[in-house]
């Protein structure tokens, strides 16, 4: 475990020094911020999905609730930024608690189904309310926090990094404490877990609330960073699925799997979006520009990243049940 703490410290130090090497490159900074955000989300999801084995298909609901609550409070009230983020956490925890309190009384796949349903309810509500800007979305303007320059990317890079490191630290603490053993026991065999004195209901709810609270903060930071949110950006089923796939591809139930998954998938999405494959093929002379293949790639691949994720996930599940991280530590256990 000491090794893992050292790993987190090393990662934090390394990642914190990146902006100084990078200088002022908003394009790369944007990709890195997205990576850190997806890593935080996947890592947060991993606490309830990976450790406790309770697959949430609706984590976008927590992310989106964070984004909306924080944005609405920031634009309509004079409440300080940290309190707005805190309010987001509170709101999402409440949704998590309501979902868990009802569904975790049942065994089986009810939670997975209910998590989709709840996320859809949250999405539709946000889509139809006035205070959320409805279908038009919400513009967030004139925000200040201390003397930070919120028009630069740097504060957001560090905010997401701080969130990710916090999430990793909480994961590590949980994993090696009593709570972690209980969650893993629940994942492995619920009857056996109960026979050892573990209150399934209590611990599943705990895992969900911690996971949801962390996902909320990612949403809050994202909203202030992007300055514009709508339901398709922060409350979509697609986002929920991406969070799961990131974790599964990286390595579900492991500390670093979600981070690895985020690094890979965000890079991949960017490569697809910018039609990197087409460009490479053109540059290497295999196909010519404006050839049918090139235009096919250009027109289709850019929107295909979820499909590509899906294919990679299927391949991972079939060949690498422990994710890509599992490749490097076949013999070692987490």
């Amino acid at each position, binding site marked *: 475990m000491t090794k893992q703490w050292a790993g987190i410290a090393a990662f934090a130090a390394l990642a914190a020094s990146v902006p100084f090497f990078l200088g002022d490159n908003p394009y790369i900074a944007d990709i890195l911020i997205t990576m850190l955000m997806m890593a935080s989300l996947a890592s947060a999801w991993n606490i309830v999905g990976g450790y406790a084995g309770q697959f949430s298909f609706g984590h976008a609901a927590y992310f989106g609730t964070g984004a909306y609550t924080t944005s609405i409070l920031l634009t309509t009230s004079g409440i300080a930024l940290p309190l707005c983020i805190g309010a987001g956490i509170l709101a999402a925890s409440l949704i998590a608690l309501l979902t868990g309190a009802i569904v975790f009384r049942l065994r089986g796949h009810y939670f997975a189904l209910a998590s989709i349903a709840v996320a859809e309810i949250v999405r539709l509500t946000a889509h139809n309310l006035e205070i959320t800007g409805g279908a038009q979305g919400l513009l967030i303007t004139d925000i200040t926090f201390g003397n930070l320059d919120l028009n630069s990317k740097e504060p957001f890079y560090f905010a997401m990094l701080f969130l990710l490191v916090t999430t990793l630290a909480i994961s590590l603490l949980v994993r090696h404490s009593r709570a972690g053993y209980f969650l893993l026991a629940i994942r492995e065999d619920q009857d*056996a877990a109960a026979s050892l004195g573990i209150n399934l209901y209590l611990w599943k709810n705990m895992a969900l609330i911690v996971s949801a609270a962390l996902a909320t903060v990612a949403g809050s930071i994202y909203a202030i960073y992007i300055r514009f949110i709508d339901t398709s950006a922060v409350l979509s089923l697609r986002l929920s699925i991406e969070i799961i796939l990131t974790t599964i591809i990286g390595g579900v139930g492991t500390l670093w799997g979600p981070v690895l998954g985020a690094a890979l998938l965000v890079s991949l999405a960017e490569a697809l979006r910018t039609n990197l494959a087409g460009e490479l093929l053109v540059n290497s002379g295999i196909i010519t520009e404006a050839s049918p293949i090139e235009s096919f790639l250009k027109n289709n691949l850019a929107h295909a990243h979820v499909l590509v994720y899906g294919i990679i996930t299927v391949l991972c599940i079939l060949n690498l049940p422990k994710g890509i991280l599992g490749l490097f530590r076949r013999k070692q256990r987490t």
Partner: protein
Amino acid sequence: MMAPLLEITSLSKHFGGNAAVSDVSFSVEEQRIVGLIGPNGSGKTTLFNCITGYYPASSGRVWFSGRDVTGMKPDRVCRLGMVRTWQRVKPLAGLSILENVMTGAFCRTRSATEARMIAHEQLRVIGMENVTQKTAGDLPIGLKKKLELARALATGPKLLLLDEVCGGLNNTETQELLEIIRGIREKGTAVVFIEHDMKAVTRLCDRIVVLKSGKKLAEGLPSEITSNPAVIAAYLGTGYSHA
């Protein structure tokens, strides 16, 4: 006189029209080993499931340590000091042996360091201290059964319900395990012991309860049970060949 540690009164469990357990009563005193025997399908495992809260009983009551635990959830039952093992083993398959036993130990401590100490101690008692890092799911059935026992013991129970823990063990291993169970009793834990191997049951148990088709057929000292004509007719005839 002190109340018994476990007291079951007129317990019944029906699955539709099938009376898996009907009107069974018996009790277990502190520090006793009670054998629970009966042919396949006679309701032994179902009885455990009702006692430990996995199935709601159709009627009857279960008292443990002076408390009515009828209908109580399994995890609460365990925290009160009654723990069971599984005939169809339920290892925490992806975890190591040590982690499995530590999970049980967390029933009595919050500290991981302490849980690890308890787990090592239990694994030593059970004779598995050399394989603590193996993945539980990869073990042969005999070791899985022993792991069940170690994990249950780690919770620090007053009463241990063992459902065919000797399954998959050879003769010497069974003897060793019986010694271990005697040791457990010496340290103050009572045991209810389901087993088909009649030799093991008669040698280990202070009392024996016999079930047949869900009903209690007989109860008494091992010598009384082995000479009871009804038991011989119903069970021992097939039981000996089974063992």
